[in-house]
């Protein structure tokens, strides 16, 4: 019952998304600036959390482009994108479908400068529409290279 309600919520959200001409491949359909500041996570905070042996580890999802993920991604992260288009959003929806709605989830992209990212706002909106309330968004100002790799935080590569 609950999952069908959530599916309906996503369908409604997606319908509204398309109604206003932003379904499919459409850069900046949901701007990153729409994400509340309280939900942003600084890279150094996530890096420390992931290194900690005592802190619970969140589910980390990369919602950007596949070729970036294949080159380098946060250790333990899973690919679930790109959220800027409908097919990528479906991947994200499928990945989280069976998770409890209080699951700790961190999403990130880093494809482009924050203000131009076509994926992160859409991913956050979709997760909220599905009822997830413990979602944090990694705040990547410039790109994944500059804000994560060049700072020496752990990465791995491959699909």
């Amino acid at each position, binding site marked *: 019952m609950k999952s069908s309600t959530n599916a309906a919520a996503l369908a409604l959200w997606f319908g509204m998304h398309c109604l206003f001409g932003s379904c499919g491949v459409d850069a900046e359909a949901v701007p990153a600036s729409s994400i509340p500041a309280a939900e942003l996570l600084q890279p150094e905070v996530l890096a420390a959390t992931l290194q900690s042996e005592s802190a619970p580890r969140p589910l980390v999802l990369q919602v950007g*482009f596949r070729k*970036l993920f294949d*080159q*380098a991604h946060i250790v333990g992260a899973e690919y679930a994108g790109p959220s800027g288009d409908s097919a990528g959003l479906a991947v994200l929806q499928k990945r989280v479908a069976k998770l409890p709605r209080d699951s700790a989830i961190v999403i990130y992209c880093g494809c482009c400068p924050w203000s131009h990212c076509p994926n992160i706002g859409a991913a956050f909106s979709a997760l909220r529409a599905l009822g997830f309330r413990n979602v944090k968004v990694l705040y990547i100002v410039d790109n994944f290279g500059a804000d994560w790799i060049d700072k020496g935080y752990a*990465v791995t*590569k491959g699909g």
Partner: protein
Amino acid sequence: MWHRRRVLDMAALFACLGAPIVVADTPARPLGTLNTIAPDFTRTDLSGRPLQLNRFRGRVVLLNFWATWCGPCVTEIPVFSRWQHRYGGAGLQVIGVSMDDDEALVKRFVAKHAVSYPVLMGDAKLGESFGGVFGLPQSLLLDAYGRIVFRQVGEPNMEALQSQIEGLIRVR
């Protein structure tokens, strides 16, 4: 120096013992850095023609990594198309490398926007050969010797880039 030698000795010892050596899995960032020779690659462009980077030695090459969903990339492309028209005869060659997943989508975009230079599909391997393409847009400028003289992740200062291209063409 001593430390480096010691590390190598330890690695050799572990290798002899058959033990796995765990190395930090960090992409090789020094590749594709300024003042190094750009790594050669051969790909087929969207029109089906083979494209080898080293065959453009003697020309100034603007290598642009981009994607259709990347707003700043889409803004740059008409400018690069104009530069190809304007400076192509003087020795500039723009090459676009799309990091999209969907080639058909890229073909439609290139046709719609009348992109005036060859575009090919990039992949993780090609990105890694340039030290990683971890953000878009990303542009590299290669001089006539294939040396990387400019690299910018994000939106470049187009006026400064244009001046640099004009300077390289003059001394080519």
